[in-house]
């Protein structure tokens, strides 16, 4: 029994380690394979004279004049020392840029995933269990509405309604400024309310539909018929038998969305003027800021892999047949 669990854990660890090392190399190669040059971008409109020496100097300053394999070795060496280099465009260390943005992104994304997933599980189960009822109809219609609504539109509608017309929330940014202690925490919560609401609704709508459909399908299974025949109460059937079977795909979905949302909150960040990973990555890609791109993708890789790894482990708990527990 123990060896099965160990083998499962070991197998997964090796697989994740291999994926991680592969992604590290891709992370180095992809930005360099894109057309466009960070140095030309840096020079931009200011460049009065096309002085080739100037470009060479700048390339040398950022280590871009060296052959690719040397750049790759330097990249690996820096990673080992958690030195992600200096942004070509933003004049700040990449570690500083990322820690700053990642903290805010997690503060935005974590509550959104938790709230969105909880809502989806709660209402999805209810809707699936009460399939074809009025509640099911209304909930499904609502979920479809949010699911099909473009994120930008939903975020702008929330901003326009609750911030502009009703004046309940600020029109953007993370804080008002000049606050400390509990006032600061309250102020941040006030600023993050609408972005979290937008992301929660968007996340919940998709997960709701999956949960609802899973519940509907499971209700037709023979073991449910058997449970009913045994005279089990409906609530017990739902919590004990239905939800348990919905959990594995639901956990995968939550893990994927968590990894994705670290980078995918871009639209919400733009609408609410937040400093997060989404805008950091977007700006770096547009400017071909290699060090920032590499650093961000590395962090994303770690987030996505960690979320998937956690999902694999939770999956095994939720469904003992998978993890070798039985």
């Amino acid at each position, binding site marked *: 029994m123990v060896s099965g669990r160990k083998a499962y854990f070991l197998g997964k660890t090796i697989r994740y380690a291999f994926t991680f090392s592969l992604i590290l190399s891709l992370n180095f190669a992809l930005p360099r394979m894109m057309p*466009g040059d960070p140095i030309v971008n840096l020079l931009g409109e200011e460049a*009065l004279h096309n002085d080739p020496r100037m470009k060479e100097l700048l390339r040398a300053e950022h280590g871009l004049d060296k052959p690719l394999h040397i750049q790759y070795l330097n990249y690996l060496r820096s990673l080992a020392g958690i030195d992600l280099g200096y942004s070509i465009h933003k004049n*700040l260390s990449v570690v500083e840029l990322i820690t700053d943005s990642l903290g805010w992104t997690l503060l935005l994304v974590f509550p959104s995933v938790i709230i969105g997933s909880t809502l989806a599980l709660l209402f999805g189960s209810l809707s699936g269990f009460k399939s074809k009822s009025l509640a099911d109809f209304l909930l499904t219609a609502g979920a479809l509405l949010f699911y099909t609504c473009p994120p930008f539109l939903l975020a702008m509608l929330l901003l326009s309604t609750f911030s502009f017309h009703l004046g309940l929330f600020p029109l953007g*940014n993370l804080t008002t400024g000049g606050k400390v202690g509990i006032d600061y925490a309250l102020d941040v919560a006030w600023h993050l309310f609408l972005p979290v609401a937008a992301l929660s609704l968007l996340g919940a709508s998709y997960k709701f539909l999956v949960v609802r459909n899973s519940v509907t399908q499971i209700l037709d299974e023979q073991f449910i018929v058997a449970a009913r025949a045994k005279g089990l109460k409906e609530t017990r059937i739902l919590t004990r038998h239905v939800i348990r079977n919905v959990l594995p795909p639901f956990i995968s979905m939550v893990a994927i969305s968590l990894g994705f949302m670290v980078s995918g909150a871009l639209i919400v960040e733009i609408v609410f003027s937040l400093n997060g990973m989404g805008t950091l990555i977007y700006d770096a890609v547009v400017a071909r800021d290699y060090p920032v791109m590499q650093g961000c993708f590395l962090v994303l890789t770690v987030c996505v892999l960690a979320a998937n790894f956690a999902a694999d482990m939770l999956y095994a708990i939720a469904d003992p047949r998978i993890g070798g527990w039985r």
Partner: protein
Amino acid sequence: MPMKRIPELSTIGMILLCISLIGTVWAAQGEINSGDRISRLTIGTINQINDANPWDYYFGVYSMILSHQGLVRFNNEGDVIPDLATSWETDDLQTWTFYIRDNATWHDGKPVKAQDFKFTVDYDLEKDPLSKSYIGAIKSVEAPDDNTVIINLEKPDYNFLNTIAVVKTIPEHIFKSVDDPKKFNEKEAAIGSGPYKFVNFDKNAGIVTYKANENYWGGMPAIDEIELRMFKNPDALMLAFQKGEIDLPYYYSKGISYYYVPKLLEDDDIRIEVYPERGITNVFWFNTAKAPFDNKELRQAFSYAVNYEELKNMFTAGYGTTPTAGWVPEGTLYYTETRTLAQDINKSKSMLDSLGFKDINGDGLREMPDGSDFQPKLLTRSDLSDSVRAAEMLKKYFADVGIDIKIDLADKSTHGEIMDEKKTHEISLAGTTFWGMTMGEGYGTGYTDIRNYGWSMVSEPEYQSLVDDLGRTKDKDERRNLAAEIQNYYAEEMPQFTIYSMNIIQPYNARYAGWEYNPLHGVLSYGTLFNLHEA
């Protein structure tokens, strides 16, 4: 265990929700005026400042507007006037002597000296390779005494004052011990000599604060505190403006989109001014070094195919100007009248016919004179939606005269790489700025001349000698003639032509009056900073 965390975290989420609602009772506090002075002006912008470091692009821009100064600056007419220098002289346009005012001080109280400017140029050239792009032509700088700066150039340059106007002076006593200015993010890094002192940058609030410099040599400016509030989204910025949270939506070197105007016109608390644009919103560039675009008749034939009135209506909603063949915007010194650009399909077709671009295979599209396919690629920036739409319109206009162009979308970086470095474009779309038009020897020569930016890659000796003459001629009448010749050259040769140009639409809080427009910095001019008052 992890399963147990889910309800815990959702509880935290719910608490977050509750405290957020409690937090809504706070309302943004408007500024209160004391007497005639304005206590606080809030400016909203989508320009993103990353750090309070003068080497950060946008912080550098706002430093130049508020806290830092050059030897000279542009006035509201776009002419160069004294700033830290009270006067200057040159005999040969190669050696320039500037006399520094003796009552200027840095924000920390120390006097501004000629040595500071010498240090600035030497330091910039040593520490920032980028600086070579605009001060690379400086051979040496001397500071024989506290008030005299002598600048020696590699070659005579009449236009040097325009170049030096964007060099912001930094204090030697602060930076002499700083090895890498780009990583020097201490508060002293923002010390300048201008009318405003940098106070604070709150990145998470997206707010940069400046206070009036009570010791400014030119007197106390009219606004006590300036707050710069950053938005990432222009719609949210305009909502904040309509709500009264900001007094001025400001985009560096641009106005707002006409899209917002009807809504703003309904608001009695808002006024709108329209200023003439001294850059050009969208220009059609030929790579004249590449056949067949080395042929001026072909370039002219392209220009006759475009419906300028339609483009003006579509992209400027009446806030634009009809372009002229002389390309240089009206308002430029020694602007010369040239023919207004207008669509003439028949003329375009007959010119193409006579050049041998004919439909040989009967598919409705013209082939090259040698019978090969003629499908030029129009390089367009994919991130500028108006440019993409304009490219689609151009494709339609050219198809009407039998030319099949292919739209080649590229993001900002790739577009820049092709236009500035590789020069592999055939035809392309890109705008110009006021300062860009003053580059080189002015009149857009920086964009045109192959020895400079050269987006249209012009290398003709006739043109280059005009440019060189402009660089070494001081006589006003001669300069007027040369400027006219350059504009007539553009009108005849058409290395590039404007497809539409939008004026600057600048709304502001009607509560204040005294706004003054400057072609480089827009409504954030010294005129505004010193004259703004209650309406």
